[in-house]
């Protein structure tokens, strides 16, 4: 047999494939544009975030020294003495000190008061960068006299000007500078605790440093010659750790700032990735239809001798090309959008943000766009291999059952792996990425199942008693070449993503807008000395304010847990106790009963100590976890130098969200009454006016007492949250835009499926109105059911996220969901009808000719 007359091993000519891919795509450019647009916004979001991330990283690297202001900083909440003091005095070539604490500031001119963070400074700090002030020289000159630098928002808030004075404790300072930015401080932090700088030599005069005052002692060092910081910090670390002090170097701050921002950028990248995934669903459905329309062309090519691999590659090249173009457009858009991001983030970062084109981000975005559009397009593309040349003779010739194609399962696997891996890169948690991927997979399957069920139910339900238009409209949902599955999945997934973003945003925002309404406490007075306890309470009563809680607070440390000390923990890494447990300074209280926000989870509550026996204490469950504590375990506390043996008698769950004093450790009565202590008083002020009058009276009579006005905190939080939600909304906009594009693309491509049928109906005499009703019914049903399913999944998904990821109560407003439902349903019908417009307005023959 002369088989050698045929060359079976013809090599694939890639140039010809490129040429054919270009030729084949020529008349489809407008349709291919729809594929492109589906991924543009996702890529734009990611490139913008990536570019911003790289710019911030560069800024952090460039400005790290100014963030910390020194080569080394050491801080703690105890005044160092003895050998520790000697060690601290021996470090660095230049030294500065700072004491910072919360205190009430009083502006004599306006008679306003406000809780501020007082920073008493001594020495040449900051050695790098500057305390940014207006006028500039005030940043250094204020240390020469009894002068203060006051946070700019605080000055604006109370209409205070340079030359006015501020009273801190018993001392009055002349305001000589507006503080624009303290070293390493972000706008958000400044909003919560506005900073006031005073020279340290006048700190004692304020009379604010008393027992129990929460003071942070910081020491700043500059080295004139380069020093091996790693070696130095390793050497001093054990001593500092023992004393509960922390150190920070330029490198450390660089890492911390980078890590903090990294978390934020990763979350936002995930939001961008959702937009991209949504776009990919659009790409997959568009390519699916595209391939279906290309069956005839592919069959002709196969007839002429094109190999199955060649046919596959021709369309693969097209998709890579489209993915590349879409990704490049997305990258350009993203690079433009990144200019807006510094405006969104300026309050969250403690340094000036620069904007530069990041080729790395652009490269990553383009690569990601091409890979992901290719992966998702691969599902419909692989079916090209099975298109038979026999389709040239009979168009209805069926190809292989796609579900039996092993390559299809390989593509599913690759997509799943890709999503897991990409999500892992953003979340750094395999479990989180697995849940994210499973969530998407589950949503996909639910939508597919609903689509399948819908087709079955419709087939059973529709009967001759229905009017022709209803019958025809609904039958379109299950007849051959129907769009039910594709549209259901793409519209449903878009709705779901958009809805989840809305829900989570509203849950998080709702969670933080803690209401200070009713009789709940909305003002906290702390640092009240024991001797001032009754006078402060009387002052409140005189102003007509209720004493909701008056709690004694004792400061102590943990010395031993079951005979294990901090030193033992240092030596033995197998001990399951967190290091911070020994370093932390606890503020505890004593009482004979549980408070409203507490619930026992283990052990027995003992309200009164028995003389001569170990003291029974109640431990909060998170501390119990960190310290590996069980009922009966022994803890030795150090109460201001006195060793106090105790045992764990109960473990409590505490609702920290409630506005009241909550404690990690609660002692019974009869133990700590004589220990050095201060008091906290909780009251409810009915209005801002009463609040201001009361605060003025407190500051005048008890300058050491600090006041937290919850109303003020809430307004600051509200401002902060609106900034955060603006950022989230900004990123979500990409998903929403993509969802709309996918919706338009899905319906637009379905036009080509419906066109032949509608033309046939028109030819047979159907009126314009009849076609319109049939189309509207089909799309209305598809749109509303997809949206409804998507929203239902979003409810479930957001509930899971609220419960397990954010751990907040699930509260959701139904109005946005309802609005979204109507928008999606109506949009589906409108786009569906717009697609049919061409069929309705032109003679059938003209359409048949142009689509032939």
């Amino acid at each position, binding site marked *: *047999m*002369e*088989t050698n*007359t*045929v*060359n*079976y091993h*013809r090599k694939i*000519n890639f140039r*010809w494939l490129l*040429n*054919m891919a270009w*030729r*084949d*795509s*020529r*008349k*489809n450019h407008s349709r291919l544009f729809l594929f492109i647009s589906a991924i543009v916004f996702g890529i734009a979001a990611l490139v913008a975030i990536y570019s911003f991330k790289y710019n911030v990283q560069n800024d952090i690297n460039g400005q790290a020294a100014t963030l910390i202001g020194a080569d080394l900083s050491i801080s703690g909440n105890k005044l160092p003495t003895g050998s520790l003091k000697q060690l601290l005095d021996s470090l660095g070539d230049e030294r500065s000190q700072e004491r910072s604490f919360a205190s009430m500031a009083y502006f004599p001119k306006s008679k306003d008061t406000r809780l501020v963070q007082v920073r008493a400074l001594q020495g040449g700090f900051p050695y790098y960068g500057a305390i940014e002030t207006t006028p500039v020289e005030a940043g250094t000159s204020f240390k020469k006299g009894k002068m203060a630098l006051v946070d700019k928002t605080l000055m604006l808030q109370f209409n205070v000007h340079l030359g006015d004075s501020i009273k801190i404790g018993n001392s009055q300072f002349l305001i000589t500078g507006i503080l624009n930015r303290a070293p390493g401080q972000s706008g958000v932090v400044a909003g919560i605790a506005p900073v006031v700088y005073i020279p340290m030599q006048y700190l004692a005069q304020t009379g604010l440093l008393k027992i129990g005052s929460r003071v942070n002692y910081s020491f700043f060092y500059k080295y004139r010659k380069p020093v091996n910081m790693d070696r130095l910090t390793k050497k001093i670390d054990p001593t500092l750790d023992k004393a509960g002090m922390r150190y920070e170097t330029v490198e450390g701050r660089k890492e911390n700032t980078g890590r903090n921002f990294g978390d934020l950028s990763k979350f936002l990248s995930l939001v961008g990735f959702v937009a991209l995934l949504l776009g990919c669903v659009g790409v997959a459905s568009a390519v699916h239809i595209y391939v279906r329309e290309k069956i*005839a*062309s592919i*069959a*002709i*090519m*196969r*007839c*002429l*001798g*094109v*190999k*199955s*691999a060649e046919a596959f590659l021709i369309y693969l090249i097209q998709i890579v090309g489209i993915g590349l173009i879409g990704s490049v457009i997305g990258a350009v858009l993203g690079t433009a959008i990144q200019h807006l991001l510094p405006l969104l983030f300026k309050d969250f970062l403690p340094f000036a943000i620069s904007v530069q084109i990041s080729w790395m981000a652009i490269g990553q975005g383009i690569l990601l766009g091409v890979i992901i559009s290719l992966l998702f397009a691969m599902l419909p593309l692989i079916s090209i291999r099975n298109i*038979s*040349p*026999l389709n*040239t*003779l*009979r168009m209805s010739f069926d190809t292989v059952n796609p579900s039996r194609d092993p390559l299809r399962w390989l593509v599913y696997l690759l997509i799943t792996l890709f999503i897991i891996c990409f999500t892992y890169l953003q979340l750094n948690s395999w479990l989180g990425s697995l849940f994210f991927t499973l969530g998407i997979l589950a949503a996909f399957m639910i939508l597919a199942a609903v689509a399948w069920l819908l087709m079955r139910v419709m087939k059973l339900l529709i009967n001759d008693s229905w009017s022709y238009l209803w019958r025809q409209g609904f039958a379109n949902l299950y007849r051959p070449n129907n769009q039910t599955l594709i549209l259901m999945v793409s519209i449903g997934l878009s709705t779901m993503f958009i809805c989840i973003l809305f829900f989570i945003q509203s849950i998080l925002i709702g969670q933080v807008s803690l209401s200070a309404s009713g009789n709940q406490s909305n003002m906290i007075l702390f640092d009240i000395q024991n001797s001032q306890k009754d006078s402060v309470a009387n002052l409140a009563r005189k102003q007509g304010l209720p004493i909701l809680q008056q709690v004694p607070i004792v400061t102590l440390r943990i010395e031993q847990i079951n005979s294990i000390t901090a030193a033992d923990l240092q030596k033995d890494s197998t001990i399951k106790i967190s290091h911070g447990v020994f370093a932390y300074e606890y503020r505890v209280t004593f009482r004979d009963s549980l408070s409203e926000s507490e619930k026992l989870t283990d052990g027995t509550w003992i309200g009164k100590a028995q003389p001569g026996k170990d003291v029974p204490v109640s431990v909060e469950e998170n501390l119990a976890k960190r310290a590996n504590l069980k009922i009966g375990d022994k803890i030795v506390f150090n109460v201001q130098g006195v060793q106090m043996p105790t045992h764990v008698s109960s473990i409590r769950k505490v609702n920290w969200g409630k506005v009241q004093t909550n404690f990690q450790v609660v002692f019974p009565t009869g133990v700590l009454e004589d220990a050095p202590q201060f008091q906290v008083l909780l009251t409810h002020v009915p209005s801002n006016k009463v609040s201001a009058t009361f605060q003025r009276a407190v500051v005048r009579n008890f300058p050491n007492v600090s006041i937290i006005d919850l109303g003020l905190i809430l307004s600051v939080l509200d401002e902060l949250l609106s900034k955060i939600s603006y950022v989230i909304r900004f990123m979500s906009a990409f998903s929403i835009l993509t969802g709309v594009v996918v919706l338009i693309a899905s319906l637009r491509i379905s036009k080509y499926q419906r066109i032949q049928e509608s033309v046939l109906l028109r030819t047979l005499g159907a009126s314009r109105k009849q076609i319109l009703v049939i189309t509207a019914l089909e799309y209305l049903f598809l749109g509303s059911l997809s949206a409804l399913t998507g929203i239902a999944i979003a409810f479930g998904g957001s509930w899971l996220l609220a419960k397990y990821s954010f751990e907040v109560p699930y509260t959701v407003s139904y109005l946005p969901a309802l609005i979204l439902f109507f928008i999606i349903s109506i949009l589906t019908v409108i786009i569906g009808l717009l697609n049919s417009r061409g069929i309705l307005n032109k003679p059938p023959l003209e359409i048949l*000719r*142009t689509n*032939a």
Partner: protein
Amino acid sequence: METILNITNLSKTYQSAGRTLTVLSDINFTIVTGSTNAIVGPSGSGKTTLLGLCAGLDRSSSGSVQLNNINLSNLTEDQRAQVRNQHVGFIFQNFQLLPTLTALENVMVPLELRNEKNIKAKALDLLDKVGLAERGHHYPSQLSGGEQQRVSLARAFSNAPKILFADEPTGNLDAETSEKVVKLIFDLNKEAGTTLVLVTHDLDLAAKTQRIIRIKGGKLIADEKTING
């Protein structure tokens, strides 16, 4: 005389709704190189299925198809594609031009696949032979049915096929155009010395060939020479 196509005990069955549907049953015939042949029969008789099997577009359920001494039954789909590219030409009832390619590009495709030289000149020459040299840059949708079929004809002859299969080549054309296209098919066939197998229900067209094979209900019922034979 040399045989180009040898059909032995050829059968084709399909599974439909759990039942076996026999479309072709035990067909046997041979086609001599350079001859012109027509397969005729009523609608649903299996003539298009037979053409598909003869041309290697489909695989038989049993029996064999030997085209130019190559047993198509033993080949994979991709190998059959190579056989089609190197030995077979096609003309279809609905022309089957690639809609996104111009007339010239459509004619060039088989030549490009064979990696030939002077492709454009050859394709233009073929278009000239079918009278469409001036329409090479037009897309199929810009051409009339007759013109599309002539482009299809030029494409069919572009790879100098040993055998040309035509499925109802005039089925979509009016009488006048049909006559021109038929003349062109026979003229080009004669000039190139190609074997022609055409499937038709048009007995006048069939009578222009040298031999008529009649099938009915999937069976070969007659095989006769015409006055041209």
